[in-house]
């Protein structure tokens, strides 16, 4: 079933990309073409086929001790803040997370 403009509006909201009304039209066309291109995936009989999520099978998470800068790769605070659009003291500055309507999504 084709994705409607309202479906695409919902996806954009979830993806947190504020699309204009014009962009929504183009995106709806694109999404339906792209999903159509993926159909070969649905035509397989994949009963009993294990998925491969990663080319290197036996990877595990890298763990580190709960100590500051355990790997010597932490950025100094002034460096970490240097690319931020807004900062205050030692922190990133953001607008209200609650807003007028009383809650972030």
């Amino acid at each position, binding site marked *: 079933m084709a*994705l409607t403009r309202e479906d*695409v509006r919902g*996806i*954009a*909201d*979830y*993806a*947190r*990309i*504020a*699309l*204009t009304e014009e*962009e929504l039209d183009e*995106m709806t066309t*694109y*999404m339906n*073409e*792209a*999903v159509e*291109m*993926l*159909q*070969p*995936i*649905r035509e*397989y009989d*994949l009963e009993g*086929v*294990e*998925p*491969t*999520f*990663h*080319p*290197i099978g036996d*990877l*595990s*998470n*890298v763990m580190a001790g709960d100590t500051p800068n355990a*790997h010597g*790769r932490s*950025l100094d605070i002034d*460096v*970490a803040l*240097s*690319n*931020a*659009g*807004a900062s205050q003291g030692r922190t*990133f500055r*953001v*607008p*209200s*997370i*609650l*807003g*007028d309507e009383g809650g*972030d*999504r």
Partner: protein
Amino acid sequence: MANFDTLSAAAIAAGVKAGDFSATEVARAALDAIEARDGEVQAFLQTSAELALEAAAATDAARAAGEELGPLAGVPMAYKDNMHLVGTRTTCASKMLYNYESTFTATCVQRTLDAGATPVGKANMDEFAFGSSTESSAFHPTCNPWDTTRVPGGSSGGSAAAVASGEVPLSLGSDTGGSIRQPASFCGVVGMKPTYGAVSRYGVVAFGSSLDQVGPFGRSVTDVALAMNALVAGGRDHLDSTSQEVPANFLDGLEDSVEGMRVGIISALMEHEAVTDEVRKGLEAARAALEAQGVEVVEVELPNMTSAIAAYYVIGPSEAFSNLARFDGVRFGYQEPNCTTLAEQTALSRAHGFGAEAKRRQMLGAYLLAAGVYDKYYYPAQQVRTLITDDYRRAFECCDAILLPTSPTSAFHFGEISDPTQMYASDLFTISNNIAGNGGVSVPVGLGSTSGMPIAAQLQGPAFKDHTLLRMARALERSIEEAGLAKPGTVAPAFAGKGGEL
């Protein structure tokens, strides 16, 4: 002396070591060549003259002090602009990161610097590496040095064009679905996607984390092997969990005979409607060239390869959506002013920071990962990935490498492919490699009889057999040269000798 664009990376490093010229003289020649050529090519988003001259001076000082110089001593290099290098911006060719200053240096970049390379700048690309033509760069297009009305390919188009136009002998790119090999093909240079895990991605802005791999561009297989050695010489990088130990022996036995080795071909693929006649002829020449070196040609099958594009456009956008969620306008990246809530700031920063294709890929990924949709596409795509990987395993039981086109066509004109899904289809022959994770290399095999543009053959090898793959690539290159079809080491004719006297 000569123009620096006539020298290979290996010759530059040897000349600097021997004292024939200094690293500083080479750096000045490279900056001069960029000055003279980049107005037309536009391969660079930023040049780093100060860093280049500092690094070159350090190389010269090390030589004066009697220290042993690295394998890339004095070799000017360009880096795709998704690689962090302190002292440069890392923009990913996106408005999102237009003023982002690198806060650390990527391992791949650092290793070339440790080997003595001179960093001359950051190369243009498709925005966040989403594309096959470099047309989606938010800043400017890059022109193909062989015909400036055509695209250089992508997404690492700037890295390929900088090497092809003689601005640098070596560059680095990244390849998620063909983004090193396809621009190498379009620009008539050698480009390698090593096996997934061979090169650290630490400090390279992530696109598809199970697919991305960093690799070099050069004007010859030998230079690419030289760069590969530098990239893996530091051993496993503990800052990238996918990094694997790979011996730095890519130059060893590179010139050895390949007689008796086997290359697989897939006849059915050559009949694909997207393949142009001139590409078909180029591949026939490549096959003959390998046979002339004593390689046995065998027929193999990759039956699930035709589904690779579908699998890729499930996996790639899903991973991209996840990775690009970090661009929320708070810690870095474009921040929309005057927003009253964080949610509004996030949605508008992303809407105005990302270009059209970056939005498309993330929207597709967001949809594919949604509850109820995931089971229909994402999970089956990972099962198809198993089938594609098994296809390769079976094929490599009877051959050492597979020969196929890099791209179904030679370089196209700007604006020629405007439909996004049509652009995706151009990755037909490169994408399955990223899905399975094994290595691939694109080697020029001459000029197309119709377009007059470079045509390339692609060799794909088994995982972690990149050494053998390069040896086969070198045999192909040597044989193509002997047949008079292409001359390794040469620069696109319109740019040869323009600035850069050494």
